[in-house]
């Protein structure tokens, strides 16, 4: 029975993710069209009729197009790695979803090894290291990018792969620092526990550690490689980046993987900082649920994730792309110090905050929220004062006086 339960969950998850990816591509194109004052895809409806259905047939048409395109493999590629790279990326991205909860629990009891428990809405329930597991799966994605770029045996692909690899590697550090703060407050690496802790206190982590949210949000953005951070593709300079030489179903795999990275980033942002399935007065916070509550929790979580994804999409058309040196400055000179400050603040609070605020007769979480926002403003101001206003990446030159 547990095997069957897991298999059903995996099947539902894969089907849901693939459908969501297809339709979110359509949403993304609508958002792009709206921002650029165009109409966007609105024609494809039911085939052979004139029914347009607002363009809802577009994803199916896109899928058929990708599948039926000629599978063109350039003659000079390293064949094995060329085929392997998209698969590695895709598998790593899907694996991360094994520990991500899509809701809390369903009110059906199943019996396993003599103990009954409700069905948890996560493929691998009770993984003690959930957050680190997501992180590990994300770090495997770098291989696909690097190998894809290298195996294509093309200068643009190699440059795109190296750029993207360096970017993913650099932004893993602030990402980890952002996660660490949440883990310290919750006292657990388990995603379910992190949500429950926020639901029971009724205060989301976003309120008490805004600096952590900022660091994690930007790093998550960079890890998913979307527009302000899409140096790997950079159409104007690198053709298509590491997937220049890919076509057909392999390109589809890579593009879907990029969407999956955005999903996982959104899920993590919502779960770690915005309370997961919790919404005040609507979902409750206990582990005993009835059917309506269970469904509402799923809808609340998915609604929050959808809002985050929409933010990603709007952000895509709102900022210009970073230059590579700006990207690295951002990771190492801005996000890393901010992450460390956040971690230090939280460590001090976890150790002393409770005692001090009780001694002063104030609610601890409110004190922490105030401290968090003050730290955010001060750290931001200090960084703004310390960093130069303009950045220059021209080659270094000795000044005339010294020569």
């Amino acid at each position, binding site marked *: 029975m547990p095997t069957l339960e897991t298999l059903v969950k995996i099947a539902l998850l894969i089907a849901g993710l693939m459908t969501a990816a297809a339709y979110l591509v359509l949403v993304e194109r609508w958002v792009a069209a709206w921002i650029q004052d165009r109409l966007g895809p609105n024609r494809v409806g039911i085939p052979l009729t004139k029914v347009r259905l607002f363009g809802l047939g577009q994803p199916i048409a896109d899928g058929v197009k990708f599948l039926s395109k000629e599978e063109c493999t350039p003659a000079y590629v390293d064949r094995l790695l060329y085929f392997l790279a998209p698969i590695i990326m895709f598998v790593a991205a899907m694996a991360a979803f094994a520990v991500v909860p899509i809701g809390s629990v369903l009110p059906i009891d199943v019996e396993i090894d003599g103990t009954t428990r409700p069905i948890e809405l996560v493929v691998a329930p009770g993984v003690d290291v959930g957050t680190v597991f997501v992180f590990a799966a994300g770090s495997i994605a770098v291989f696909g990018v690097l190998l894809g770029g*290298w195996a294509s045996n093309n200068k643009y692909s190699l440059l795109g792969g190296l750029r993207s690899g360096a970017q993913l590697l650099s932004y893993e550090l602030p990402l980890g620092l952002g996660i660490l703060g949440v883990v310290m407050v919750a006292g657990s690496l388990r995603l379910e526990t992190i949500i429950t802790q926020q639901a029971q206190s009724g205060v989301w982590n976003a309120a008490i550690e805004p600096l952590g949210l900022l660091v994690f949000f930007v790093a998550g953005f960079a890890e998913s490689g979307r527009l302000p951070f899409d140096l790997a593709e950079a159409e104007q300079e690198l053709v298509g980046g590491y997937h220049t030489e890919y076509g057909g179903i392999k390109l589809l795999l890579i593009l879907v993987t990029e969407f999956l990275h955005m999903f996982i980033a959104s899920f993590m942002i919502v779960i770690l900082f915005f309370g997961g399935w919790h919404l005040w007065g609507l979902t409750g916070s206990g582990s005993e649920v009835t059917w309506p509550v269970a469904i509402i929790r799923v809808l609340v979580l998915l609604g929050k994730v959808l809002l985050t994804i929409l933010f990603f999409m709007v952000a895509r058309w709102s900022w210009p792309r970073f230059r590579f040196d700006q990207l690295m400055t951002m990771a190492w000179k801005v996000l890393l110090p901010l992450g460390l400050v956040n971690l230090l603040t939280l460590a001090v609070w976890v150790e002393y905050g409770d005692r001090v605020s009780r001694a002063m007769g104030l609610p601890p979480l409110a004190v922490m929220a105030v401290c968090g926002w003050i730290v955010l403003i001060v750290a931001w101001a200090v960084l703004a004062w310390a960093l130069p206003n303009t950045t220059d990446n021209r080659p270094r030159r000795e000044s005339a006086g010294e020569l």
Partner: protein
Amino acid sequence: MPVLEAPQILVIAAALAAAAMWLMLPRVRAGAPSRAAGVVLGLASLGFFASQLPGLGDWADGLIVFVFSGVTVAAAAATVTVHKPVYAAIWFGLVLLGTAGLFLVQGAQFLAVATVVVYAGAILVTFLFVLLLAQPEGRAPYDRTSTEALVSATVGAVIVGVLSIALGRALSSPTLAQTMPPAARRATGVLSEHHVAALGTELFARHLVAVEVAGILLLVALVGATAIATVRKEHKP
């Protein structure tokens, strides 16, 4: 009464492994010994080693352990025998994933994911960066050959042989952990629900100095690397 005792079988297995690795390691000259023979000998050696594994209870658990171990060992052999440096890195990645899988089977979740994050996600990617830039084609002879095939195969086999004989002795007498009742094992060991917290407490209470020393060592290395990498200005006298 079996024909051979356990240590003798392990010695034979190690000797076979040495011969297999010697045959499989890449050479400069054409007409080097057959690598296919090396693969056959390697499989035979693996068979000998596997025959000495203790029973693992449930067949499904046993199958998973055997698959992970087999993949890990085969990938490790491939790491040192393939010609292209990039492929060596990929095989090494598979070794790490296999090791992580073995950790996971044992219930050591944190060690498993930490192995993947630290080794596969950070260290191996750094290797790859260098390999991708240094020799895209992998045609340089120094990248493709092993200079001391005989010595390295022998040393490796001796280490593996000694370790497995020592391990066989240790496994033949029941250890403290095995004599404990299952409930106690569950509470103290890696199978405990809160083993990550237990691991953290252990690391930062009993081994605090070691953790701090390792941290400082890494910091020193970081500062040193920065000092080496910084462009030095020529000072005029």
